């Protein structure tokens, strides 16, 4: 857990719209509906969903697991497994050799597609899963959300799951968006038109 054990890195979002009534039941229902589903024994490439902040194996979402008084906290969990084209090709060639040995001829394109499909399912089930966890802290009173990490990949994971679960629009807080929140209304146009200063030198 980056927020607890590591050196935290955060990305900040502003919630542009609030739910009509933010209750434990509301949050619980959204988290439960989009809870993480284990794909350990399934032939799925990835699974994305919510888990509890202190226990990535738990999706019970009792209020005490996510409501910490001044803020709400939970985690996004993404389990994924990748099957390389090379691996799939290797096993396909073995399978194809079996078919040729049995029938004396190469499989038809239809049969090839079927073999490839079932092979992919089989190999996916056997591939090891990689787990990524992304902590979320939601401060309802100031309509701010932090995610425990930076970079486009993490932001996209959060934005996809957040939108699917809560349907509430968010905007990443970066200098320009922070700027519009910080300056008075009459300076909005000046900020929008601002150009880089000539502090820096000319080209090398």
């Amino acid at each position, binding site marked *: 857990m980056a927020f607890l054990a590591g050196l935290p890195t955060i990305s900040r979002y502003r919630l542009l719209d609030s739910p009509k009534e933010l209750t434990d039941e509301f949050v619980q229902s959204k988290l439960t509906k989009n809870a993480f589903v284990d794909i350990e024994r399934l032939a799925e490439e990835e699974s994305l969903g919510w888990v509890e902040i202190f226990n990535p194996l738990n999706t019970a979402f009792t209020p005490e697991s996510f409501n910490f008084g001044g803020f709400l906290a939970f985690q996004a969990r993404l389990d994924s497994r990748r099957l390389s084209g090379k691996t799939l090709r290797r096993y396909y060639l073995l399978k194809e050799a079996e078919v040729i040995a049995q029938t004396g001829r190469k499989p038809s394109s239809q049969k090839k597609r079927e073999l490839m499909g079932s092979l992919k399912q089989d190999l996916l089930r056997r591939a090891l899963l990689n787990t990524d966890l992304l902590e979320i802290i939601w401060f309802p009173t100031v309509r701010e959300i932090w995610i425990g990490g930076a970079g486009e990949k993490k932001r996209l994971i959060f934005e996809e799951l957040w939108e699917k679960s809560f349907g509430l629009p968010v905007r990443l807080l970066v200098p320009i968006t922070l700027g519009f929140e910080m300056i008075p209304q009459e300076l909005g146009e000046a900020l929008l038109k601002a150009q880089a*200063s000539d502090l820096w030198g000319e080209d090398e």
Partner: protein
Amino acid sequence: MPAPYPKNVDFLDLWTEKLFLGQEFLTWLWLTAESDSVFNGPGGSETIIRFEKKLVLQKGDGLGRSQLVCQNPDHDWSEAYTALGVGKKVIKAHLTMSTPSFECAFALPADTLAPMSVKFEREANPVEEEGPKSRIGAFLNKAALLTALNAALDYLFQTFLTLRLSASWTEEELPRLKAFLESHLLSGVRV
């Protein structure tokens, strides 16, 4: 009332177009802190900023990108001043912040101004005590410290922005920053 966010403007386009705001903020904070590291913080508190260890400057994007990483434990930033003088911009800094309520070290990228790899100095060690209560306590403590850090950073950015959008930016601040740079640059380098 805060300024309204512009309508019909693509967020990514606007973010890219205004990346210079974060770069100028880091440059202003750095050069100002080199002269006087004490800033006003939220509620009039004293906030001490020091740029430590590492400063990343960059010019251009993509294949034409030219980057300079200054590792500097002795606070000798002459290489960074020179890079600034030839058009490189501060894109990431490693700094320390000291306030009455916390001390921390962290990295600050210009594109988001969201703190990275934050290490608090006066933090109860969460792993020494065990059990759910101490774990929740440590979590609440970390969240409170991060909230205070963000508030301090927001306050500094707001101070910069107010200055940046006022007449005194071109009349006083830019000349001051340029004079500072000129006095620290190696002879013969244009500013």
